[in-house]
């Protein structure tokens, strides 16, 4: 299966620089290598059928050819040895603690701004900063309850945090279903490898939701608030609600009476304590935010301010995953925790700083440029592969609105063997772990490994031709 496989000049997750199998991958290679191509392809087809029959699909917008697609799944797992995972776990825990202290500060005394660690200007101009929520206390002082930080590895194998997704990170259902699909279609490769299970995620999530309930007596009523069935992540919303055994609701299922939230049931109104919302701040309450939202719940923010309902994640967390604020996260960690960051950032240039901007504008063909508040691979310029026109468009945008842009050197993302028509080839990958912050911090071992299926591509987003892999964290 792996005959002729070339790690090339990149960091390869399975092979070292001399094309030798990394020792902790050897048992897996032996089992995968023992399959002939036909058997491998049959089993791969089984896993694809599983996804199709389960309806594990995502919607591609602006595509009229039937809106649902299967998220491509590659059966070759990505392996993380135990020591490496311990390091990641420590770094991610440190990061979510610091981000939460930061958000509490920003929405209260703003000491970090008074101490001039971050220029006030950057916070006040952040698109997702919600000054109207200053002074509002949230249960347990937790703002980001679920964080999906994206990690990448450079040439030498160092892990970097690429961005923090602290609003509505998605993809956890794929992490769970990838494992299910792989167990079904390739049961033989798991034998005695000591792969840590991932199925605690829904339980951890539910425990966290119950933990933040403002009502301390009786069982809290938790619900998942979805934008609805046309959202790209609707499958995931249903999946998580079902795994947790909670109701999935749309805005129209909820109503607010005397600053309490209720859901409309066949037996009348039932009070809701905790909302796991998968809907953006902008749309969540038309009275406070976008007036034209038909998805939100009028009056929800009143109930939230009054402390009668908890939201996960809290309102206003977007200020922490603004890509400009990202630049300051290492300083944030030092400021609040007095610690060195365990996981480094990717070097970042801020277009609104004069020196940096000059550098960016004179090096556009070598850099990745990102809008501060876009996700899903949108609003991005990949300098090395961009056309001259595309570069000029971004040059104008950066000059017109420097606060909204950052630039980073191209990191050559590590690669992992991936089945491509006709054989195994190296493809670039990233890793999105899911960090849950409730009574304590829980991180399901591994995360979602996304893979750029196009040869040479560094963009792993599903909307841009990405797929995914199962992620194995080893016990030893």
């Amino acid at each position: 299966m792996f005959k002729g496989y070339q790690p090339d000049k990149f960091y390869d997750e399975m092979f070292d620089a001399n094309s030798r199998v990394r020792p902790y991958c050897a048992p897996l290679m032996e089992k995968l290598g023992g399959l002939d191509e036909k058997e491998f392809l049959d089993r791969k087809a089984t896993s694809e059928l599983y996804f199709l029959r389960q309806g594990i699909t995502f919607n591609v917008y602006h595509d009229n050819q039937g809106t649902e697609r299967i998220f491509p799944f590659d059966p070759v797992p990505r392996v993380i040895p135990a020591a490496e995972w311990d390091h990641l776990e420590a770094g991610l825990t440190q990061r979510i603690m610091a981000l939460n202290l930061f958000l509490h500060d920003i929405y209260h005394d703003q000491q970090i701004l008074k101490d001039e660690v971050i220029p006030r200007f950057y916070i006040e101009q952040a698109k997702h900063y919600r000054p109207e929520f200053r002074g509002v206390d949230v249960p347990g002082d937790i703002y980001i309850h679920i964080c999906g930080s994206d990690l990448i590895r450079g040439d030498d194998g160092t892990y970097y945090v690429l961005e923090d997704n602290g609003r509505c990170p998605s993809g956890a259902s794929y992490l769970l279903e990838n494992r299910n699909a792989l167990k079904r279609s390739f049961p033989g490769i798991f034998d005695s490898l000591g792969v840590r299970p991932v199925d605690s995620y829904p339980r951890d999530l539910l425990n966290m939701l119950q933990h933040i309930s403002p009502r301390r007596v009786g069982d809290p009523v938790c619900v998942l608030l979805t934008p609805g069935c046309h959202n790209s992540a609707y499958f995931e919303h249903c999946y998580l609600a079902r795994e947790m055994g909670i109701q999935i609701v749309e805005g129209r299922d909820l109503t607010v009476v005397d600053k309490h939230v209720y859901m409309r049931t066949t037996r009348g109104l039932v009070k809701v304590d905790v909302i796991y919302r998968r809907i953006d701040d902008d749309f969540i309450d038309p009275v406070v935010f976008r007036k034209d939202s038909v998805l939100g719940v009028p009056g929800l923010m009143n109930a939230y301010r009054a402390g009668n309902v908890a939201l996960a994640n809290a309102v206003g967390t977007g200020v922490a995953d603004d890509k400009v604020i990202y630049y300051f996260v290492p300083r944030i960690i030092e400021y609040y925790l007095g610690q060195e960051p365990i996981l480094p950032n990717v070097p970042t240039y801020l277009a609104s700083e004069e020196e940096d901007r000059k550098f960016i504008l004179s090096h556009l063909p070598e850099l990745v440029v990102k809008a501060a508040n876009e996700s899903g691979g949108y609003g991005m310029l990949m300098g090395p592969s961009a056309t001259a026109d595309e570069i000029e468009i971004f040059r104008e945008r950066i000059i017109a609105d420097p606060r909204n842009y950052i630039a980073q050197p191209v990191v050559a993302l590590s690669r992992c063997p991936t089945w491509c028509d006709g054989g195994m080839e190296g493809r670039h990958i990233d890793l999105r772990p899911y960090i849950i912050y409730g009574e304590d911090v829980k991180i399901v071992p591994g995360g979602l490994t996304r893979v750029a299926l196009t040869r040479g591509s560094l963009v792993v987003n599903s909307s841009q031709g990405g797929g995914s892999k199962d992620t194995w964290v080893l016990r030893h």
Partner: protein
Amino acid sequence: MLSRVANTLYWMVRYVERADNLARLIDVNRQRLLDFESLDSERLRGFWKPIIQSTGDEELFHSLYDESGSDEVIRFMTADLRNPNSIVSCISLARENARTVRDQLSDELWEEINALHLFTKSHEAGQLLISDPPKYYENVRRSALTFLGIAASTTSRDEAWEFMDLGRHLERADKTTRFLDISTYLPAGSESDSTGVLHWTAILRSCGAMGAFRAGHHELSARGVLDFLIFSKTFPRSVRYCTERVDLSLHQISGTARGTFSNEAEREAGLLLAALNFGSTDEAFEVGLHDFLDGLQVRFNKIADAVFETYVLMPDRIQVRPLEPGAGISAVAAWQMEQQQQQ
């Protein structure tokens, strides 16, 4: 249970039931054509007209098709997505409803409706409809029955089940009356001749009732068929049986004793059930079959409207936005759903 979820489960099952009934109706009549010597286009139109009328989509059909030949009618009723009541449309709507309440369904139940949807959308299905139509309709019917069987063996007998059962039996009762109404358009005087017998046989078969009808030794006549399909106490597609089940489900949901009522839906269902329990085919002949069947359909609709009013709108005393029946989502809402960044 969330009102919206109750409403969605109810429609999911109605659409599956509708597709199942349509598959039988089309297949039976397609085969019945083989009993005739070749029909000219005028007589073909006469043959299909009552069948299109029975689903209430005659106007739409004529706006979409110039000819009324077998191919056009079959395509319109089976695979035309422009017809919201075609088999493929119904399956697609059932599946869309299932998708929105996926968390309420067993894995097996979801997989069955999803598999049926994938089948009707497949290239293979398109080929089959041309090369082997009976096989196509059999696939649809079998899958619909499997869906029913899985639902029955994996769903707790709680509200979710009762709303699904309610949808199934209201749809069934409605379709039985519509299929019976096809006889309204029989050529005058053909009641007892061989054409009439063929007609009644086709109606029985469209309701999947041939075997049960024979086993009861009923006379194959207008009276015999009406007695059976409207007033049978035991046949699961008779109007009386379905109404009995609707009444039962409604009382299970509210917890009210049978024979009494706590809301308008229960009152309407109780009234209709009494009329069927104590009525006879003579009444149908007195008022005229078409008007009689029409009256039944009006009463089914009254029950359905009252269910919607009671369980979907009523909890909402502080009404903000009404829910729409079925899977209706406005373009604005759909657009906003898409806009939510999932990071």
